[in-house]
């Protein structure tokens, strides 16, 4: 199942700490389901994070990132109320994104 995301962004000192959970199976293509059928590879390849229009983090992932990925990063020169947006694209071209105001 893919699509849902949860993000928390909070000031900690003068740095904004961002924690993101993404619902995604992150299938490597080497696993089988309970009926023994192989499950095709299905994983997030690119992740982007912006603060307003400034890119604050970009990532390239392989299938070795764990299922329902967790990501945390820290942004300088950010303040309460700014909007952080995180989005991803997977190997099937599906995308999802979420945004939150820094608390």
């Amino acid at each position, binding site marked *: 199942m893919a699509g849902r995301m949860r993000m928390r962004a909070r000031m900690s000192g003068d740095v904004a700490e961002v924690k993101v959970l993404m*619902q995604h199976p992150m299938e490597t293509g080497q696993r089988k389901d309970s009926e023994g059928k192989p499950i095709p590879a299905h994983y997030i390849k690119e992740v982007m994070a912006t603060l307003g229009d400034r890119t604050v983090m970009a990532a390239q992932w*392989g299938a*070795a990132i764990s299922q329902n990925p967790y990501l945390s990063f820290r942004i300088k020169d950010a303040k309460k109320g700014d909007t952080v*947006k995180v989005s991803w694209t997977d190997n099937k071209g599906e995308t999802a994104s979420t945004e939150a105001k820094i608390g």
Partner: protein
Amino acid sequence: MDAYRRSLLKAVGAATALAAAGMVPLRALAAMSRPEKAFEATDPQGAMTALGDSAAESDQIELETPDIAENGAVVPISVTSKLPKTTRISVLVEKNPNPMSAMFMIPEGTEPFIQTRVKVAETGNIYALVEADGKLYKASSQTKVTLGGCGG
């Protein structure tokens, strides 16, 4: 019941994904080229050389991994670089079929710190590769992976 369940959840997932149509198009960001050769490498050395010339060991990289993981499917790791002008942090897992797991671009104004969770196939080293001021540095940490549960 299960098949019904799957179609229901897919519908919910697709709806959420479509709602994200308005996001920034990723392709446009030139700095984001994907080191395909590194991701396709099947040994740590191959992956590292695909990322750049030989990486020097550095104690300025704090790589935190658990000494023993109850399950290799989800191993929390965090990487903090104290090297000035850090621009990229990569994570490699020695014994995985494809050791190269992730690469994080750290733009100006973002802390050289990353936390995530990776799959670790078997007991072995986890490497953090940091690109700082154009040079490549590395640190490693051993994580033991056990078969959790009662063996049943």
